[in-house]
């Protein structure tokens, strides 16, 4: 038995610049932090069964991995060349499609576990690249590279996407005081509605040419956002999120809808500095930065507004930032 995990992440600025249509013309940049919400994967060698099992929100048992409906597990097993006698189960603390990058956390945890299963050891960069290859080349998701790198490396990072496809990972060295302050200012509010990242991203990809200048400004704003965090100027950081949100809404029509706009306005009306919808947009989580004395009021107002909007399951998700990335926590090594 092997148990692996990878963290989810909050992406602050620069989403969309990690797509090749953009970074082949201009360096893409994203700043994000991993959080204490993990996708866990359990992999069991089952020599006396004659099947491949995948257990997630449904339970699949098939004779060959090519019959699996779960695209990431299917393509990963086919790619690694494991065709039998394996059971893979996944566990998550919150629903899929919250905009916390959980699909890529899943891929990183899965690949970490499968590497341990086949006796290979990959470094963080190799795991990140393997997850990109799995999701983009094999599963053919129209997504970028930021989430795979965030989940594989862990911590708070500035990622830069270069024209040659390479990715620079620069850790943001925040001391514990600033980290705890930032966590106190941050509100993560699950909107209850779920969305499919690929549909929004497909539109974003198609629109990249038209919106090249907007994405360029977002990429260029990453260093200033980083500096604001290092100064613990969370008011400025919040204002920059507001600017980014306004810019990003110009990118795609489906990134926001009237309901989400109203929720955002509720948070702003109760004193938040700024924020964004996490992930590719169109639902998921609202992330806001707010003054400490206004925080509780913003959360209460969001809860009321979510009820009024009929957003089932909406609510605050408490988070803290973590340094740890994709890892194998347990390996029984044949016993």
């Amino acid at each position, binding site marked *: 038995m092997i148990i692996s995990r990878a963290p989810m992440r909050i992406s602050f600025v620069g989403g969309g610049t990690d797509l090749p249509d953009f970074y082949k013309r201009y360096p893409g940049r994203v700043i994000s932090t991993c959080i*204490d919400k993990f996708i866990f994967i359990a992999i069991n060698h089952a020599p006396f069964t004659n099947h491949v099992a995948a257990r997630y929100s449904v339970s699949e048992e098939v004779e060959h991995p090519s019959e699996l409906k779960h695209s990431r597990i299917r393509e990963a097993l086919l790619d690694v060349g494991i065709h039998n006698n394996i059971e893979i189960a996944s566990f998550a603390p919150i629903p899929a499609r919250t905009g916390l990058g959980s699909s890529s956390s899943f891929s990183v945890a899965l690949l970490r576990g499968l590497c*341990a299963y086949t006796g290979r*050891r*990959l*470094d963080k960069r190799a795991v990140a690249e393997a997850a990109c290859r799995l999701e983009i080349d094999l599963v053919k998701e129209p997504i970028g590279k930021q989430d795979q790198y965030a989940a594989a490396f*862990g*911590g708070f990072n500035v990622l830069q996407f270069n024209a040659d496809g390479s990715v620079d990972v620069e*850790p943001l*060295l925040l*001391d*514990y*005081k600033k980290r*705890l302050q930032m966590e*106190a200012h941050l509100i993560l509010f699950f909107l209850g509605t779920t969305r499919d990242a690929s549909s929004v991203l497909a539109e974003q990809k198609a629109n990249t040419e038209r919106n090249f200048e907007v994405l360029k400004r977002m990429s260029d704003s990453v260093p200033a956002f980083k500096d604001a965090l290092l100064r613990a100027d969370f008011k400025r950081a919040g204002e920059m999120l507001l600017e980014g949100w306004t810019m990003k809404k110009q990118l795609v029509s489906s990134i926001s809808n009237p309901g989400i706009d109203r929720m955002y306005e509720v948070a702003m009306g109760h004193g938040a500095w700024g924020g964004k919808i996490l992930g590719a947009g169109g639902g998921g989580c609202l992330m806001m930065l707010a003054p400490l004395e206004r925080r509780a009021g913003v959360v209460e107002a969001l809860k009321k507004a979510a009820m009024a909007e009929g957003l089932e399951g909406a609510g605050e998700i408490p988070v803290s930032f*973590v*340094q*740890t*990335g994709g*890892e*194998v*926590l347990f*390996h029984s090594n044949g016993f």
Partner: protein
Amino acid sequence: MQEYIRQFADQAIALLGSLPTVEIAKAMNILQAAFERDGRIYVIGNGGSLALATHWVADFNKTVFSHNLNEEQRRFQAIRLPTTEEELTAWANDIGYDMVFAGPLQNYIQETDVLIAISSSGNSENIIRAVNLARSHQVPVIGLSGFDGGRLNPLCDAKILVATPMAEYELVEGIHAVILHLFTKYFKDCFDSVARLQKS
């Protein structure tokens, strides 16, 4: 006499003034990650560096949570290797001095762990063997070296080099002790703050 003392103090002050802060910060993030995944931290060194390792382990395992020992279910697990003189002499006598750290490390090492290697020259063969073993397991390595960093410094994930002329052991080991105490103080302050937040 006082001039001699002053000169030594000035050298120490200059080294403290040019501490590799980025690498020390990376080391603290590596230790934070080890705590989050409940991994162990192995510390190795020869001679005075072994004394530093032992001293640090005693401090780090207890002092970090000294204000909230009862509240914290999870604590750091720092281990000096080898853990006993018997194990050290057995490996040295039976296998060879080059294996006194890598041999015992092999018994413990898991992917979730961290290695701290302390070597003023950075060239001790037994240290390099243990570092290479850790690297082959994808275990992050924090290196504390002196002089020109030797073979150790480039192998590490956090490259804490106290750069001095060759053979300035007294200065290097003294500054290493300060850095190790900084690790302890940082996490003590950090977990004190977390505990206060949880109570408020």
